């Protein structure tokens, strides 16, 4: 019995299900259960959801709008993952990005759009990058675990923004705690009239391509990938692991920051502390679903966007709660991760522990206990 169990789990682990489709199918099937309990037909429900997601330009606009912030954060997390870093701090970074953009927009209302818009976006990116560099530097210099530090930074960011919008930046004479509206000249143009779909989506698409080019085609990207795949070999080859960590966290933070920037300049038009419904964490899910590949992230965020765009429609039309899509999303991530298995052959090191691979590569390997599992790829030719 034990033997069977081991073989079964080994098979699950070893299987290269690069068909996230299979996982998706399983997620959809399992999510049909609550729909059935609600007394509705799952096929009808999924149909309504799809119709709500892509039925007509307005609905497509809604889906794409919902996909946009997740696309940014997904790219952010994916870029970090590829370089061997766990950036769970996208949530905080996007808040900082939003802050940066708002400050510039509100601070220079008379600047022409051609200057103000790029400036706001740029500063937002920098704010986000800054928020990412802090945990990055701590990791590079002191090997502090970035999962924990980025989570802390999320909360610090949130409360700081909250303080600002309840206090110094608050719109005077308003019941609500948010800033004044940003001037027209700082807002992102709408792409499809009658929808909320804004140019931020296009920016995100451009960044998908840019990220792809960065990772696959540039020398810097090469270094990032090398460090993520095998920090020891990267160190041996002369690459600076520390510089890499800080750079990656800056870029990653900036990308997440853009999620905040575009939500403010494209949808909300003012900064508040409730504009993000967890986009940062969705980014983690989407990065995993997309296997940390920019195109995969694009597909995965579109998928999430579609689900959420169709969800409210599904709820309205046949009464299946919109939150069902969250179940689908959770199960999809779960099954994909189980299916795809490890990213590298060795178990992923989550925390530094005793041996910090990377910053100081470990020189004493295979010595003297050379009798552990020897190099298995040993068959002569």
């Amino acid at each position, binding site marked *: 019995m034990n033997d069977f169990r081991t073989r079964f*789990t080994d098979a*699950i*682990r070893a299987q290269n299900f690069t068909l996230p489709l299979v996982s998706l199918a399983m997620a959809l099937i399992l999510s049909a259960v*609550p729909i059935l*309990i*609600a007394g509705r037909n799952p096929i009808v429900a999924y149909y309504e959801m799809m119709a709500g997601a892509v039925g007509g330009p307005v609905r497509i606009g809604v889906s794409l709008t919902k996909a946009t912030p997740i696309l940014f954060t997904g790219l952010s997390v994916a870029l970090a993952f590829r370089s061997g870093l*766990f950036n*769970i701090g996208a949530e905080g970074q996007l808040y900082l990005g939003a802050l940066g953009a708002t400050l510039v927009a509100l601070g220079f209302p008379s600047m022409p759009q051609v200057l103000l818009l790029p400036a706001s976006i740029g500063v937002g990116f920098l704010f986000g990058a800054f928020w990412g560099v802090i945990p990055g530097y*701590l990791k590079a210099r*002191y090997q*502090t*675990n970035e*999962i*924990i*530090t980025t*989570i*802390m*930074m999320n*909360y*610090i960011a949130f*409360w*700081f923004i*909250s*303080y600002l919008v*309840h*206090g110094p930046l608050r719109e005077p004479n308003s019941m609500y705690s948010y800033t004044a509206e940003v001037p027209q000249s700082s807002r992102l143009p709408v792409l499809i009239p009658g929808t909320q779909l804004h140019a931020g989506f296009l920016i995100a698409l451009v960044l998908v391509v840019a990220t792809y080019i960065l990772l696959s085609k540039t020398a810097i990207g090469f270094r990032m990938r090398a460090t993520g795949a095998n920090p020891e070999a990267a160190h041996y080859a002369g690459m600076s692991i520390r510089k890499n960590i800080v750079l990656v966290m800056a870029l990653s933070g900036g990308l997440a920051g853009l999620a905040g920037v575009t939500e403010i300049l494209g949808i909300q038009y003012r900064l508040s502390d409730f504009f993000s419904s967890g986009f940062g*964490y969705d980014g*983690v*899910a989407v990065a*995993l679903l997309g296997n940390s590949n920019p195109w995969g992230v694009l597909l995965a965020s579109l998928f999430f966007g579609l689900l959420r765009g169709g969800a409210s429609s599904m709820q309205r039309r046949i009464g*299946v*709660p919109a*939150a*069902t*899509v*969250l*179940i*689908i*999303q*959770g*199960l999809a*991530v*779960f099954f994909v*991760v*189980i299916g795809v*298995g*490890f990213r590298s052959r060795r*178990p*992923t*090191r*989550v*925390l530094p*522990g*005793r041996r910090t691979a990377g910053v100081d590569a470990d020189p004493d390997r295979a010595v003297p*206990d050379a009798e*552990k*599992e020897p190099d298995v790829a040993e068959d002569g030719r």
Partner: protein
Amino acid sequence: MELLTQLFGVSLFAAAIRLSIPIIAAAVGEVFAERAGILNIGIEGMMLMGAFGAVIGSYYSGSPWVGLLSGMLFGAILGLIHAYAAITLRINQVVSGIAINLFALGATTTMARILFHEQRTQVASFDELAIPVCKGIPVLGPVLCEHAFLVYLVVAIAFLSQYILFRTTLGLRIRAIGEYPKAADSAGIRVLFIKYACTVFGGVMAGIAGSFLSLVQLNLFVDNMSAGKGWIALTAVVFGRWSPVGAMLGGLLFGMVEAIGLRVQALGLPIPHELLLMLPYLATLLVFTGVVGRTRAPASLGKPYAKETL
């Protein structure tokens, strides 16, 4: 100065304790899981499921006690799933946790809509006790002696956990696994079983935390009612340096800060309570990065353990 007395009245401390209990409960469970090497980011989801499970149990049985058990069960099931993913399948623990969070949010919101057609369905909940002798004590009485049973239960578990972890053979085994599982294995300890047990215990405690939210603080289920308390619990674990009593103190800190924040808001005082709420996180960050004192996580935290590899 009148402001200060208004702010720091007796009821503030009682409120702080009440607000801290869900965090403490979840954090104590997480201490065990992390001491055994398992990182459970999915605490938030387990808490939420626990809250939901508790309401279901209370709704269908009319008794909050059944609700509590139901909440614990829901938490345990999610804990078991995370354990299976992390220990047997050895997939990345952060990923598993985030997937659980997503799933729990979706499942509870959906099922709540489906089962309780009328939003805000109230269920039987726990009342506050008034312990006879205790409540008569001046000053401390109202602060300590008029809480629901669950409060005392959680505090008792926290102290008991401290004892178990540091003063029993079982605790030594758990800590050994968290530091160097190979050595524990070599000493004949059942590493995988104990890892499972600690993770499931973490789930149960998260379930209790959730039950507290839905059956003590309120008497109904609200969408996403855990509202980030799970993440706070993770922070409290680090703040408390991976000890149950330390985590309890961390939880109290967060509870106190939240209580003050609410009080400040209610009284309309011109103190930015958001900055106050930010402090515990800043403190934890400083503590963790070694700016203030040194903290070390259990050495094998987050690393999958496989036999037959040296």
